[in-house]
């Protein structure tokens, strides 16, 4: 891609002398199967089984309360005015007609609000405002908010607001964002006179040398359209500034803690006078993991009107809210020995950040650095650029930054394998990172079940008999994945000692166990797994446990449901809290019986002497004894990641306490006349460390496959000029039940040493492999290599025509002459 260098590079990272063999040397042995420091003495009763979600009965009877189901007395309905210009100064706003409309109670504009209310999910890039104060930056940007007695009146009032815009040049092609601009989208953010918001330049080892002397190299460019989360619940918020001068905000959010922080900054209220309540959330996937302008605007309006304000997005507004996967153009080159050993990786990526930074700093890193695993990479170079454009802001969508780059890499490995005459499985197996080792950029790999994943899907799909052997039009493809299980470093460093997750457990005379956690239940089952962990440690039935995770007044901070951190971090915190209770119960049983506390274990709703099982105190009795003269038991557990990683700039981006890994084989069928295709079957092996709730893990894998398949099959945020052409669920095509393949799920458990009971993650990682597996399967079916997503039939047809037709690829034999020391391409 030949990215132009950055004008004033301050943060280039060059680590030329790195010893890959040293890094890859395992620093410890994996745990023996079945053994884990957290494992209860009598084995698992609940963890590892299939547990229906604890809030299931509420949801299936329609009694779950989502934000739009809230009705407060005297409530107002709010609607937003969105910008209709992609980049423009706001000269004037006339709200007089809107204010005069009967039923309108208040109108607030960004112009009136002024600057000085900036916020943003990452502390370094607070470039968002509740409402655009001076200029608008994309069609859909927030300009004003109206509160009225009913929704229609609010909508009518919005239509009566007149805005006088002065157009500025709009940046609509990401590559144009690399050029210097006299009208930067964010004049005071960014690194130079261009619209580049973040750049990453890293090199470990000597990539040029490796490429030069490689036996074989291959380089490909890819283009990915933006995609969006498509959750069925549109954004919704209710804000109320109560008679007690407290701001209460109910919001469909994955990150109540970040919303809380932002509200304090924006409103000026001290944090203790703000309460963030998360109702039932109808899906997040990273689209509800920022504090949002509309949340801030609703809060401000509630403070002005002194009445509760409800704001429900129309579906197109959820599209405009954005934070979807960055439209990406990337170019990968890899160098290999002719036996498939990886020698170097060279990555360039430009990602279209749209109008705001969001999680963009991290996205920029992830688009490169997460290709450092799961294969041994001895030399690595990455140039990444995130540009501001006047498009809808991109953010962190499931698989954040790793999905597109993983697709490029895995397809590249498939192409390389083909030219070298190797089987794609062989190439992966040749390069696997050992468990408990390091990458050359100091990512710490812990448990690694990729080998087992590969072997499982290879056997299950009958790969050896069928790959390259199915009739023209049918094909199999392999794809692998590697993803973080939580980010090692939190994004806020202002409270250096604050744990990433804290869980409180309270038990009172009734023997009911209350678990308080800030972890956001968004349908993935975090409440359920919290209950399961506590029940397991305390040896009690699940129905004793109730989880309260909605209310910031009651729940200790958890950083939120994003970056696949909840099972790992909240799970460990919950375990520790429960273990503290367990110690209390052991002491109580000792007090009752006279035996030593260490002899007691918690099982079967009792505290039992392992050495003399007839000696037992019921759970309830033990609780009540522990309460003697003290009252209700309270315990606290918290989690913070271990300090690790390199010391260079950006070393922590991509650093995780553990990584999930996976391998999928996908089968596709292509209609040879029309180029329409279907994915008919997926064999999916995912190493999640340990499946704490097997039902939920399966659900995440199946749902991830659906979402990733959508990105290959039909989902695409299409722009026509400055407008998103398809901000609706008809033209943004999410696959229906008729498009979904059969899926065989294989849960691989590599038993992570630090994960709670061995668990890592299953929320995002399972999405990565489906893209390359399908793209590679299309090649196996019809001999067409797509380098652009989505693979719609018209595009596939067009590439086929350019190539001169379909062609079933043949079994591996080297199709390139490889000379030692020679560079192939």
């Amino acid at each position, binding site marked *: 891609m030949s990215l132009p260098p950055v004008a004033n590079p301050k943060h280039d990272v060059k680590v030329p002398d790195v010893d890959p063999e040293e890094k890859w040397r395992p620093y410890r042995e994996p745990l023996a199967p079945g053994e884990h420091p957290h494992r209860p003495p009598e084995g698992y009763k609940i963890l590892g089984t299939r547990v229906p979600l604890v809030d299931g009965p509420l949801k299936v009877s329609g009694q779950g309360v989502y934000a739009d189901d809230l009705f407060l007395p005297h409530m107002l309905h709010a609607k937003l005015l969105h910008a209709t210009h992609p980049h423009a100064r706001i000269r004037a706003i006339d709200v007089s007609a809107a204010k005069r409309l009967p039923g309108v109670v208040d109108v607030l504009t960004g112009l009136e609000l002024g600057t000085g209310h900036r916020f943003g999910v990452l502390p370094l890039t607070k470039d968002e405002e509740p409402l655009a104060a001076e200029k608008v930056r994309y069609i859909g940007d927030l300009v004003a908010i109206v509160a009225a007695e*009913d929704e229609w009146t609010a909508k009518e009032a919005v239509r009566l607001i007149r805005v006088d815009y002065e157009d500025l040049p709009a940046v609509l092609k990401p590559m144009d964002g690399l050029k210097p601009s006299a009208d930067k989208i964010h004049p005071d953010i960014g690194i130079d006179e261009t619209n580049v918001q973040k750049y990453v330049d890293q090199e470990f080892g000597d990539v040029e040398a490796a490429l030069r002397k490689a036996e074989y190299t291959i380089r490909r460019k890819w283009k990915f359209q933006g995609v969006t989360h498509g959750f069925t619940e549109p954004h919704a918020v209710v804000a109320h500034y109560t008679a007690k001068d407290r701001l209460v905000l109910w919001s469909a959010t994955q990150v109540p803690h970040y919303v809380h922080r932002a509200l304090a900054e924006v409103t000026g209220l001290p944090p203790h006078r703000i309460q963030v309540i998360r109702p039932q959330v109808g899906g997040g996937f990273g689209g509800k993991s920022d504090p949002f302008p509309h949340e801030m605007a609703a809060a401000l309006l509630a403070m002005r009107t002194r009445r509760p304000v409800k704001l429900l997005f129309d579906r197109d507004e959820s599209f405009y809210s954005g934070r979807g996967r960055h439209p990406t153009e990337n170019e990968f080159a890899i160098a290999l020995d002719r036996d498939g050993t990886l020698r170097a990786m060279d990555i360039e990526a430009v990602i279209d950040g749209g109008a705001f930074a969001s999680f963009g700093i991290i996205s920029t890193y992830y688009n490169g650095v997460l290709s450092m695993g799961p294969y041994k990479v001895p030399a690595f170079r990455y140039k990444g650029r995130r540009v501001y454009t006047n498009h809808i802001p991109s953010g962190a969508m499931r698989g954040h930054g790793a999905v597109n780059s993983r697709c490029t890499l895995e397809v590249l490995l498939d192409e390389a394998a083909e030219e070298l005459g190797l089987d794609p499985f062989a190439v992966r197996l040749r390069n696997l990172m050992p468990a408990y080792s390091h990458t050359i950029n100091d990512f710490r790999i812990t448990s690694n079940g990729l080998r087992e994943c590969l072997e499982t899907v290879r056997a299950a799909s009958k790969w050896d008999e069928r790959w390259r052997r199915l009739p023209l039009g049918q094909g199999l493809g392999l794809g692998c994945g590697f993803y973080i299980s939580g980010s090692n470093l939190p994004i806020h460093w202002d409270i250096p000692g604050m744990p990433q997750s804290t869980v409180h457990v309270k038990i009172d005379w009734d023997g009911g166990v209350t678990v308080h956690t800030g972890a956001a239940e968004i349908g993935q089952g975090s409440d359920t797994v919290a209950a399961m962990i506590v029940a397991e440690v305390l040896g009690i039935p699940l129905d004793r446990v109730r989880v309260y995770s909605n209310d910031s007044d009651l729940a200790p901070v958890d950083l939120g449901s994003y970056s696949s951190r909840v099972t790992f971090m909240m799970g460990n915190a919950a375990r520790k809290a429960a273990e503290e209770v367990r110690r209390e119960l052991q002491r109580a049983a000792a007090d009752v019986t006279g035996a030593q506390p260490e002899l007691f274990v918690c099982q079967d709703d009792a505290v039992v002497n392992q050495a003399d099982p007839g000696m037992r105190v019921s759970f309830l009795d033990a609780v009540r004894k522990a309460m003697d003269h003290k009252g209700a038991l309270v315990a606290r557990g918290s989690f913070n990641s271990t300090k690790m990683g390199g010391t260079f700039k950006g070393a922590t981006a991509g650093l995780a306490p553990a990584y999930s890994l996976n391998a999928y084989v996908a089968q596709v069928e292509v209609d040879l006349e029309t180029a329409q295709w279907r994915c008919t079957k997926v064999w999916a092996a995912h190493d999640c460390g340990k499946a704490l709730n097997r039902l939920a893990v399966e659900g995440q894998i199946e749902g991830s496959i659906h979402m990733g398949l959508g990105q290959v099959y039909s989902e695409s945020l299409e722009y026509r000029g400055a407008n998103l052409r398809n901000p609706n669920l008809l033209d943004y095509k999410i696959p229906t039940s008729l498009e979904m393949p059969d899926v065989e799920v294989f849960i691989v458990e590599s038993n992570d040493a630090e994960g709670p009971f061995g668990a890592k993650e299953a929320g995002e990682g399972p999405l990565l492999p489906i893209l390359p597996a399908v793209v590679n399967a299309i090649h196996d079916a019809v001999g067409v290599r797509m380098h652009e997503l989505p693979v719609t039939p*018209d595009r596939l047809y067009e590439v086929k025509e350019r190539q001169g037709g379909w062609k079933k690829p043949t079994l591996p034999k080297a199709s390139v002459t490889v000379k030692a020391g020679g560079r192939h391409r």
Partner: protein
Amino acid sequence: MSMLLPPFQVHEPSTIEDAVRLKAQQPESDWIAGGTDLLPNYKWMLNTRPHVISLHRVGALREITPKRIGALATLTQLATHVELRESLPVIAHTAGLIASPLIRNSGTLGGNLLLENRCFFFNQAHLWRESINFCLKASGTQCHVVPQESKCYATFSADLPGPLIALGAEFELAGPKGTRRIAASKFYKNDGIDRHEKRPDELLTFVHLAADASKWRASYQKLRQRDSWDFPELGIAVALKMEGEKLGEARIVANALECAPKDVSHLADSYRGKPLNERAIDEIAAAVEQNVRPVKNTNLSPSYRKKMARVFAKRALLEARGGGVRLNGARA
């Protein structure tokens, strides 16, 4: 209470005569049957009217027989009607291909025949259209597909007209001056705004099928991305009368490629009386491709849709030659 539509009055006649009379009294009105086309457009402020005349009480319009189908027959009813599946399977089959099962439960024959043409500059919320200064079809003066000010290129997006035209159906219209019938093949006009011959004060009441309609071997092939919800990227309807191996008569309709269904039956004229073999079918299909001009206002590229017109015409001809659409019991 919350209301999310522009205010309008709803009238609920119970007979065709009442309906026509109400329409004459309220010229600024729209008919609504199932509402699955009108209501989304109203929610997006597309050419709304202050009065809506709902037909849901006009029981006479629910009739379904192989000779006469009322405009209020739902798409689900058409897809599952035992007699219709038996004698006019292509109609039942086509109805079952439309939209999604939930929409089919509400959507009607009349609604589909009079479906508003679609374009991605038109089918957008108010804010979006304001940002492009609206368009010729709604509150604006320019077409954005083919920039000029005189013709609208919104694409015809309904499926049922395809096979109905191929079967020689007639549409009955009831107006203040009485009823009249128009051949389906003459009903539509190739313009995104002025789409058909029905006058504003008329109600489309029935579709009439000729006595010999069930003798034609017919097929309808639809191209769309997802197997539910999606509007046609194209549809080819074919109806054949065969004389042994030889072609007797052919009707071919290239649907959803332009602003109206396009009757291209003449492309088979020179094959009448000759064996309708694979080569003949290929040639006819190739001619269909040459005769359509889709524009860029649907999801797939116009050049692809054009090429697929040939593929789908061939499929339709082959299926029709082989006896036409066969419905097994599986499709609900």
